[in-house]
Protein backbone atom coordinates (compact mmCIF):
# COMPACT_ATOMS: atom_id res chain seq x y z
CA UNK A 1 0.00 0.00 0.00
CA UNK A 2 1.31 3.36 -0.97
CA UNK A 3 1.58 6.09 1.62
CA UNK A 4 -1.01 8.07 -0.27
CA UNK A 5 -3.48 5.17 -0.12
CA UNK A 6 -2.94 4.78 3.61
CA UNK A 7 -3.53 8.48 4.09
CA UNK A 8 -6.60 8.78 1.91
CA UNK A 9 -8.33 5.58 3.02
CA UNK A 10 -9.07 7.31 6.32
CA UNK A 11 -11.38 9.59 4.37
CA UNK A 12 -12.84 7.01 2.01
CA UNK A 13 -16.16 6.66 3.90
CA UNK A 14 -16.72 10.35 3.19
CA UNK A 15 -16.32 9.91 -0.56
CA UNK A 16 -18.00 11.36 -2.58
CA UNK A 17 -20.56 13.33 -0.56
CA UNK A 18 -19.17 13.50 2.96
CA UNK A 19 -18.37 16.70 4.80
CA UNK A 20 -14.77 17.08 3.71
CA UNK A 21 -12.98 20.24 2.59
CA UNK A 22 -13.25 20.82 -1.15
CA UNK A 23 -9.52 20.38 -1.78
CA UNK A 24 -9.51 17.01 0.00
CA UNK A 25 -12.58 15.87 -1.95
CA UNK A 26 -10.79 16.69 -5.22
CA UNK A 27 -7.65 14.87 -4.10
CA UNK A 28 -9.68 11.82 -3.04
CA UNK A 29 -11.64 11.76 -6.29
CA UNK A 30 -8.50 11.96 -8.42
CA UNK A 31 -6.78 9.25 -6.39
CA UNK A 32 -9.71 6.81 -6.42
CA UNK A 33 -10.00 7.21 -10.18
CA UNK A 34 -6.48 5.93 -10.70
CA UNK A 35 -5.98 3.48 -7.76
CA UNK A 36 -7.65 0.04 -8.06
CA UNK A 37 -6.88 -0.88 -4.42
CA UNK A 38 -8.67 2.19 -3.11
CA UNK A 39 -11.59 1.54 -5.45
CA UNK A 40 -11.94 -1.96 -4.01
CA UNK A 41 -11.73 -0.62 -0.48
CA UNK A 42 -14.36 2.00 -1.30
CA UNK A 43 -16.67 -0.63 -2.80
CA UNK A 44 -16.32 -2.84 0.29
CA UNK A 45 -17.12 0.06 2.64
CA UNK A 46 -20.16 1.00 0.59
CA UNK A 47 -21.34 -2.57 0.74
CA UNK A 48 -21.22 -2.46 4.53
CA UNK A 49 -23.15 0.81 4.65
CA UNK A 50 -25.74 -0.59 2.24
CA UNK A 51 -26.08 -3.74 4.35
CA UNK A 52 -26.71 -1.67 7.48
CA UNK A 53 -29.22 0.55 5.72
CA UNK A 54 -30.98 -2.49 4.28
CA UNK A 55 -31.32 -4.17 7.68
CA UNK A 56 -33.14 -1.85 9.99
CA UNK A 57 -34.67 -3.21 13.14
CA UNK A 58 -38.11 -4.53 12.26
CA UNK A 59 -40.98 -2.32 13.27
CA UNK A 60 -42.65 -4.34 16.03
CA UNK A 61 -46.14 -3.47 14.85
CA UNK A 62 -49.12 -1.39 15.92
CA UNK A 63 -49.95 -3.53 18.95
CA UNK A 64 -46.47 -3.11 20.33
CA UNK A 65 -46.67 0.66 19.99
CA UNK A 66 -50.12 0.79 21.57
CA UNK A 67 -48.80 -1.13 24.55
CA UNK A 68 -45.70 1.04 24.56
CA UNK A 69 -47.81 4.21 24.63
CA UNK A 70 -50.07 2.86 27.35
CA UNK A 71 -47.16 1.88 29.59
CA UNK A 72 -45.43 5.14 28.85
CA UNK A 73 -48.53 7.12 29.77
CA UNK A 74 -48.82 5.33 33.12
CA UNK A 75 -45.16 5.94 33.89
CA UNK A 76 -45.35 9.59 32.90
CA UNK A 77 -48.44 10.17 35.05
CA UNK A 78 -46.69 8.56 38.01
CA UNK A 79 -43.61 10.67 37.38
CA UNK A 80 -45.73 13.82 37.09
CA UNK A 81 -47.45 13.06 40.40
CA UNK A 82 -44.16 12.31 42.12
CA UNK A 83 -42.50 15.14 40.25
CA UNK A 84 -42.97 18.05 42.66
CA UNK A 85 -41.70 15.99 45.60
CA UNK A 86 -38.93 14.43 43.58
CA UNK A 87 -37.77 17.65 42.00
CA UNK A 88 -37.87 19.68 45.19
CA UNK A 89 -34.32 18.89 46.27
CA UNK A 90 -32.90 19.77 42.87
CA UNK A 91 -35.04 22.88 42.40
CA UNK A 92 -34.31 24.24 45.86
CA UNK A 93 -30.79 25.18 44.95
CA UNK A 94 -30.99 28.15 47.28
CA UNK A 95 -32.05 25.85 50.09
CA UNK A 96 -28.50 24.50 50.25
CA UNK A 97 -27.03 27.99 50.59
CA UNK A 98 -26.79 27.93 54.40
CA UNK A 99 -24.82 24.69 54.22
CA UNK A 100 -22.57 26.00 51.48
CA UNK A 101 -21.80 29.14 53.48
CA UNK A 102 -21.89 27.55 56.93
CA UNK A 103 -19.38 24.79 56.26
CA UNK A 104 -16.46 27.08 55.32
CA UNK A 105 -17.40 29.47 58.14
CA UNK A 106 -17.31 26.64 60.66
CA UNK A 107 -13.96 25.44 59.30
CA UNK A 108 -12.50 28.95 59.62
CA UNK A 109 -13.83 29.24 63.16
CA UNK A 110 -12.27 25.92 64.18
CA UNK A 111 -8.91 26.92 62.69
CA UNK A 112 -9.03 30.25 64.54
CA UNK A 113 -9.81 28.53 67.84
CA UNK A 114 -6.98 26.04 67.29
CA UNK A 115 -4.54 28.87 66.54
CA UNK A 116 -5.65 30.79 69.61
CA UNK A 117 -5.18 27.77 71.86
CA UNK A 118 -1.93 26.41 70.48
CA UNK A 119 -0.30 29.30 68.69
CA UNK A 120 2.47 31.58 69.87
CA UNK A 121 -0.01 34.02 71.42
CA UNK A 122 -1.72 31.34 73.49
CA UNK A 123 -1.97 31.90 77.30
CA UNK A 124 1.07 30.40 79.08
CA UNK A 125 0.21 28.30 82.16
CA UNK A 126 1.23 29.99 85.39
CA UNK A 127 4.38 28.07 86.38
CA UNK A 128 4.42 29.60 89.83
CA UNK A 129 0.94 28.33 90.47
CA UNK A 130 1.89 24.87 89.30
CA UNK A 131 4.94 24.85 91.56
CA UNK A 132 2.81 25.90 94.48
CA UNK A 133 0.37 23.09 93.89
CA UNK A 134 3.01 20.35 93.81
CA UNK A 135 4.12 20.40 97.49
CA UNK A 136 0.51 20.44 98.59
CA UNK A 137 -0.04 17.22 96.66
CA UNK A 138 3.14 15.68 97.98
CA UNK A 139 2.40 16.68 101.50
CA UNK A 140 -1.03 15.23 101.24
CA UNK A 141 0.25 11.78 100.37
CA UNK A 142 1.72 10.76 103.74
CA UNK A 143 -1.32 12.16 105.56
CA UNK A 144 -3.42 9.49 104.04
CA UNK A 145 -1.05 6.85 105.26
CA UNK A 146 -0.02 6.08 108.77
CA UNK A 147 3.35 7.26 109.87
CA UNK A 148 6.29 5.43 108.38
CA UNK A 149 6.98 2.40 110.38
CA UNK A 150 9.36 -0.49 110.13
CA UNK A 151 6.36 -2.70 110.68
CA UNK A 152 4.81 -3.01 107.32
CA UNK A 153 1.92 -4.99 108.64
CA UNK A 154 0.56 -1.83 110.21
CA UNK A 155 -0.21 -0.40 106.79
CA UNK A 156 -3.37 -1.85 105.36
CA UNK A 157 -2.93 -3.56 102.02
CA UNK A 158 -5.79 -1.52 100.53
CA UNK A 159 -4.09 1.75 101.24
CA UNK A 160 -0.85 0.54 99.76
CA UNK A 161 -2.72 -0.47 96.66
CA UNK A 162 -3.95 3.11 96.43
CA UNK A 163 -0.57 4.67 96.98
CA UNK A 164 1.51 2.66 94.58
CA UNK A 165 -0.53 3.59 91.50
CA UNK A 166 -0.45 7.25 92.56
CA UNK A 167 3.33 7.11 92.69
CA UNK A 168 3.52 5.28 89.39
CA UNK A 169 1.15 7.74 87.77
CA UNK A 170 3.44 10.56 88.68
CA UNK A 171 6.26 9.11 86.67
CA UNK A 172 7.89 7.07 89.34
CA UNK A 173 9.60 10.12 90.86
CA UNK A 174 7.71 9.77 94.10
CA UNK A 175 9.88 7.18 95.88
CA UNK A 176 13.01 9.29 95.70
CA UNK A 177 11.46 12.63 96.60
CA UNK A 178 12.00 14.21 99.97
CA UNK A 179 8.90 14.76 102.03
CA UNK A 180 8.54 17.83 104.16
CA UNK A 181 7.01 16.88 107.46
CA UNK A 182 7.40 20.30 108.97
CA UNK A 183 3.72 21.03 108.47
CA UNK A 184 2.53 17.90 110.23
CA UNK A 185 0.36 18.10 113.32
CA UNK A 186 2.54 15.93 115.49
CA UNK A 187 -0.04 15.25 118.22
CA UNK A 188 -2.53 14.15 115.64
CA UNK A 189 -0.03 11.85 114.02
CA UNK A 190 1.08 10.35 117.32
CA UNK A 191 -2.47 9.80 118.52
CA UNK A 192 -3.04 6.94 116.07
CA UNK A 193 0.20 5.09 116.93
CA UNK A 194 1.10 2.40 119.38
CA UNK A 195 3.73 3.17 121.98
CA UNK A 196 6.42 1.32 120.07
CA UNK A 197 5.60 3.16 116.91
CA UNK A 198 5.61 6.46 118.75
CA UNK A 199 9.06 5.75 120.10
CA UNK A 200 10.44 4.75 116.76
CA UNK A 201 8.89 7.70 115.05
CA UNK A 202 10.04 10.24 117.61
CA UNK A 203 13.51 8.71 117.52
CA UNK A 204 13.70 9.22 113.82
CA UNK A 205 12.37 12.79 114.07
CA UNK A 206 14.91 13.63 116.73
CA UNK A 207 17.63 12.10 114.62
CA UNK A 208 16.66 14.31 111.74
CA UNK A 209 16.46 17.34 113.99
CA UNK A 210 19.96 16.66 115.15
CA UNK A 211 21.11 16.45 111.53
CA UNK A 212 19.56 19.91 110.98
CA UNK A 213 16.99 18.85 108.50
CA UNK A 214 13.25 18.95 108.88
CA UNK A 215 12.63 16.95 105.74
CA UNK A 216 12.46 13.26 105.97
CA UNK A 217 13.11 11.09 103.04
CA UNK A 218 10.32 8.74 102.70
CA UNK A 219 9.91 6.11 100.18
CA UNK A 220 6.78 4.28 99.38
CA UNK A 221 8.88 1.32 98.36
CA UNK A 222 10.84 1.40 101.60
CA UNK A 223 7.55 0.98 103.41
CA UNK A 224 6.90 -2.03 101.39
Amino acid at each position, binding site marked *: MKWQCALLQRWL*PEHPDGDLPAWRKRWLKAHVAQCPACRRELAALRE*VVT*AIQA*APAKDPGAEFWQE*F*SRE*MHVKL*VQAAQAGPA*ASRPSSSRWGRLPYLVGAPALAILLVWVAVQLTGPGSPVPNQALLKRKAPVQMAAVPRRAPAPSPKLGAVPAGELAEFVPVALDEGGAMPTEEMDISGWDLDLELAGMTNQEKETFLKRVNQRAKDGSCAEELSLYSWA
Partner: protein
Amino acid sequence: MTDDQLVARAQEGDLPAFEELVKKYQREVYGLACRMVSDAEEAKDLSQQAFLQAFVNIKSFRRDAQFRTWLFRIAINQCYNFLKGRKKFGDPIDCGELNLAGEGASPEAELITQDDRRRLYEAMTQLPTKQRAVITLKIEQGLSYEEISQVLGGTAGAARVNYCQALKTLKKYMKSEDDHEVAMRPSAAVAPRASRR
Protein backbone atom coordinates in the same frame (compact mmCIF):
# COMPACT_ATOMS: atom_id res chain seq x y z
CA MET B 1 -46.43 21.84 16.24
CA THR B 2 -42.64 22.08 16.27
CA ASP B 3 -40.31 20.43 18.76
CA ASP B 4 -39.51 23.77 20.37
CA GLN B 5 -43.17 24.52 21.00
CA LEU B 6 -43.82 21.05 22.37
CA VAL B 7 -40.75 21.23 24.58
CA ALA B 8 -41.78 24.66 25.88
CA ARG B 9 -45.19 23.33 26.79
CA ALA B 10 -43.72 20.20 28.34
CA GLN B 11 -41.43 22.36 30.43
CA GLU B 12 -44.51 24.05 31.81
CA GLY B 13 -45.81 20.65 32.88
CA ASP B 14 -48.01 19.88 29.89
CA LEU B 15 -48.07 16.06 29.83
CA PRO B 16 -49.92 15.67 26.47
CA ALA B 17 -47.26 17.82 24.82
CA PHE B 18 -44.54 15.53 26.08
CA GLU B 19 -46.53 12.48 24.98
CA GLU B 20 -46.62 14.04 21.53
CA LEU B 21 -42.83 14.14 21.62
CA VAL B 22 -42.76 10.52 22.74
CA LYS B 23 -44.90 9.46 19.79
CA LYS B 24 -42.71 11.45 17.44
CA TYR B 25 -39.43 9.88 18.52
CA GLN B 26 -40.35 6.51 20.00
CA ARG B 27 -39.39 4.57 16.88
CA GLU B 28 -36.01 6.22 16.55
CA VAL B 29 -35.17 5.78 20.23
CA TYR B 30 -36.35 2.19 20.21
CA GLY B 31 -34.32 1.44 17.05
CA LEU B 32 -31.25 3.01 18.61
CA ALA B 33 -31.66 0.96 21.79
CA CYS B 34 -32.22 -2.19 19.72
CA ARG B 35 -28.96 -1.63 17.91
CA MET B 36 -27.10 -0.87 21.10
CA VAL B 37 -28.24 -3.75 23.30
CA SER B 38 -29.36 -6.27 20.65
CA ASP B 39 -32.34 -7.29 22.73
CA ALA B 40 -35.87 -6.23 21.77
CA GLU B 41 -37.40 -6.47 25.26
CA GLU B 42 -34.52 -4.64 26.90
CA ALA B 43 -34.64 -2.05 24.13
CA LYS B 44 -38.29 -1.38 24.95
CA ASP B 45 -37.54 -0.94 28.64
CA LEU B 46 -34.52 1.24 27.95
CA SER B 47 -36.36 3.50 25.52
CA GLN B 48 -39.21 3.95 28.02
CA GLN B 49 -36.67 4.71 30.71
CA ALA B 50 -35.02 7.25 28.42
CA PHE B 51 -38.32 9.04 27.82
CA LEU B 52 -39.03 9.00 31.53
CA GLN B 53 -35.65 10.53 32.29
CA ALA B 54 -36.23 13.14 29.63
CA PHE B 55 -39.60 14.00 31.17
CA VAL B 56 -38.22 14.28 34.69
CA ASN B 57 -35.35 16.49 33.53
CA ILE B 58 -37.16 18.42 30.82
CA LYS B 59 -36.85 21.65 32.80
CA SER B 60 -33.08 21.41 32.71
CA PHE B 61 -33.11 21.23 28.89
CA ARG B 62 -31.85 24.63 27.80
CA ARG B 63 -32.80 24.35 24.13
CA ASP B 64 -29.32 25.23 22.91
CA ALA B 65 -29.28 21.81 21.21
CA GLN B 66 -32.03 19.94 19.41
CA PHE B 67 -34.43 18.00 21.60
CA ARG B 68 -33.84 14.96 19.41
CA THR B 69 -30.07 15.09 20.05
CA TRP B 70 -30.65 15.52 23.79
CA LEU B 71 -33.05 12.59 23.81
CA PHE B 72 -30.57 10.40 21.94
CA ARG B 73 -27.94 11.29 24.48
CA ILE B 74 -30.18 10.17 27.31
CA ALA B 75 -31.02 6.95 25.48
CA ILE B 76 -27.37 6.22 24.74
CA ASN B 77 -26.50 6.76 28.40
CA GLN B 78 -29.26 4.38 29.43
CA CYS B 79 -27.84 1.79 27.03
CA TYR B 80 -24.30 2.33 28.32
CA ASN B 81 -25.49 1.82 31.89
CA PHE B 82 -27.37 -1.30 30.91
CA LEU B 83 -24.38 -2.74 29.08
CA LYS B 84 -22.08 -1.92 31.97
CA GLY B 85 -24.49 -3.52 34.41
CA ARG B 86 -24.78 -6.69 32.43
CA LYS B 87 -21.12 -6.75 31.43
CA LYS B 88 -22.20 -7.50 27.91
CA PHE B 89 -19.41 -5.67 26.16
CA GLY B 90 -18.32 -7.80 23.24
CA ASP B 91 -20.50 -10.75 24.20
CA PRO B 92 -21.95 -12.57 21.22
CA ILE B 93 -25.68 -11.98 20.93
CA ASP B 94 -28.45 -14.40 20.35
CA CYS B 95 -29.79 -13.04 17.10
CA GLY B 96 -33.01 -14.95 17.67
CA GLU B 97 -33.86 -12.20 20.16
CA LEU B 98 -33.91 -9.64 17.40
CA ASN B 99 -36.76 -9.03 15.01
CA LEU B 100 -35.13 -9.21 11.63
CA ALA B 101 -36.98 -7.22 9.04
CA GLY B 102 -38.12 -9.25 6.06
CA GLU B 103 -38.76 -7.93 2.59
CA GLY B 104 -41.50 -10.41 1.70
CA ALA B 105 -39.36 -12.08 -0.96
CA SER B 106 -39.23 -15.78 -1.83
CA PRO B 107 -38.46 -18.17 1.04
CA GLU B 108 -34.96 -18.91 -0.30
CA ALA B 109 -34.12 -15.24 -0.84
CA GLU B 110 -35.64 -14.50 2.54
CA LEU B 111 -33.38 -17.09 4.14
CA ILE B 112 -30.28 -15.59 2.52
CA THR B 113 -31.33 -12.10 3.50
CA GLN B 114 -31.95 -13.13 7.08
CA ASP B 115 -28.58 -14.86 7.15
CA ASP B 116 -26.92 -11.68 5.90
CA ARG B 117 -28.67 -9.67 8.58
CA ARG B 118 -27.76 -12.13 11.29
CA ARG B 119 -24.13 -11.80 10.26
CA LEU B 120 -24.44 -8.05 10.23
CA TYR B 121 -25.93 -7.96 13.72
CA GLU B 122 -23.23 -10.29 14.97
CA ALA B 123 -20.61 -8.08 13.41
CA MET B 124 -22.19 -5.04 15.04
CA THR B 125 -21.95 -6.62 18.46
CA GLN B 126 -18.23 -7.12 17.92
CA LEU B 127 -17.77 -3.38 17.72
CA PRO B 128 -16.86 -1.32 20.75
CA THR B 129 -19.94 0.36 22.19
CA LYS B 130 -18.99 3.82 21.06
CA GLN B 131 -18.35 2.75 17.49
CA ARG B 132 -21.67 0.91 17.47
CA ALA B 133 -23.37 4.08 18.63
CA VAL B 134 -21.60 6.16 15.98
CA ILE B 135 -22.56 3.76 13.19
CA THR B 136 -26.18 3.70 14.30
CA LEU B 137 -26.44 7.44 14.72
CA LYS B 138 -24.71 8.14 11.41
CA ILE B 139 -26.25 5.57 9.10
CA GLU B 140 -29.66 4.89 10.63
CA GLN B 141 -30.51 8.18 12.30
CA GLY B 142 -28.67 10.34 9.75
CA LEU B 143 -26.93 12.58 12.26
CA SER B 144 -23.96 14.70 11.24
CA TYR B 145 -20.62 14.29 12.97
CA GLU B 146 -21.28 17.50 14.86
CA GLU B 147 -24.58 16.14 16.18
CA ILE B 148 -22.97 12.80 16.99
CA SER B 149 -20.34 14.61 19.02
CA GLN B 150 -23.15 16.35 20.92
CA VAL B 151 -24.77 13.01 21.66
CA LEU B 152 -21.67 11.04 22.57
CA GLY B 153 -19.36 13.77 23.73
CA GLY B 154 -15.96 14.43 22.19
CA THR B 155 -15.36 16.19 18.91
CA ALA B 156 -16.73 15.84 15.41
CA GLY B 157 -13.29 14.65 14.28
CA ALA B 158 -13.32 11.89 16.88
CA ALA B 159 -16.78 10.84 15.69
CA ARG B 160 -15.48 10.68 12.11
CA VAL B 161 -12.52 8.53 13.16
CA ASN B 162 -14.82 6.20 15.11
CA TYR B 163 -17.13 5.92 12.12
CA CYS B 164 -14.33 5.03 9.70
CA GLN B 165 -12.83 2.56 12.13
CA ALA B 166 -16.22 0.92 12.72
CA LEU B 167 -16.85 0.51 8.98
CA LYS B 168 -13.45 -1.10 8.47
CA THR B 169 -14.00 -3.46 11.39
CA LEU B 170 -17.42 -4.46 10.06
CA LYS B 171 -15.98 -5.01 6.61
CA LYS B 172 -13.23 -7.22 7.98
CA TYR B 173 -15.58 -9.21 10.16
CA MET B 174 -18.13 -9.79 7.43
CA LYS B 175 -15.41 -10.74 4.95
CA SER B 176 -13.89 -13.24 7.36
CA GLU B 177 -17.36 -14.71 7.96
CA ASP B 178 -17.82 -15.06 4.21
CA ASP B 179 -14.47 -16.80 3.80
CA HIS B 180 -15.24 -19.12 6.69
CA GLU B 181 -18.67 -19.92 5.28
CA VAL B 182 -17.27 -20.69 1.83
CA ALA B 183 -14.62 -22.95 3.31
CA MET B 184 -17.04 -24.83 5.52
CA ARG B 185 -20.13 -24.99 3.32
CA PRO B 186 -19.54 -24.31 -0.38
CA SER B 187 -23.23 -24.69 -1.23
CA ALA B 188 -25.03 -23.21 -4.19
CA ALA B 189 -26.71 -20.62 -2.01
CA VAL B 190 -23.45 -19.30 -0.59
CA ALA B 191 -21.23 -19.45 -3.66
CA PRO B 192 -22.87 -16.58 -5.58
CA ARG B 193 -22.63 -14.35 -2.54
CA ALA B 194 -18.96 -15.20 -2.03
CA SER B 195 -18.11 -14.56 -5.64
CA ARG B 196 -19.90 -11.24 -5.51
CA ARG B 197 -17.35 -9.96 -2.95
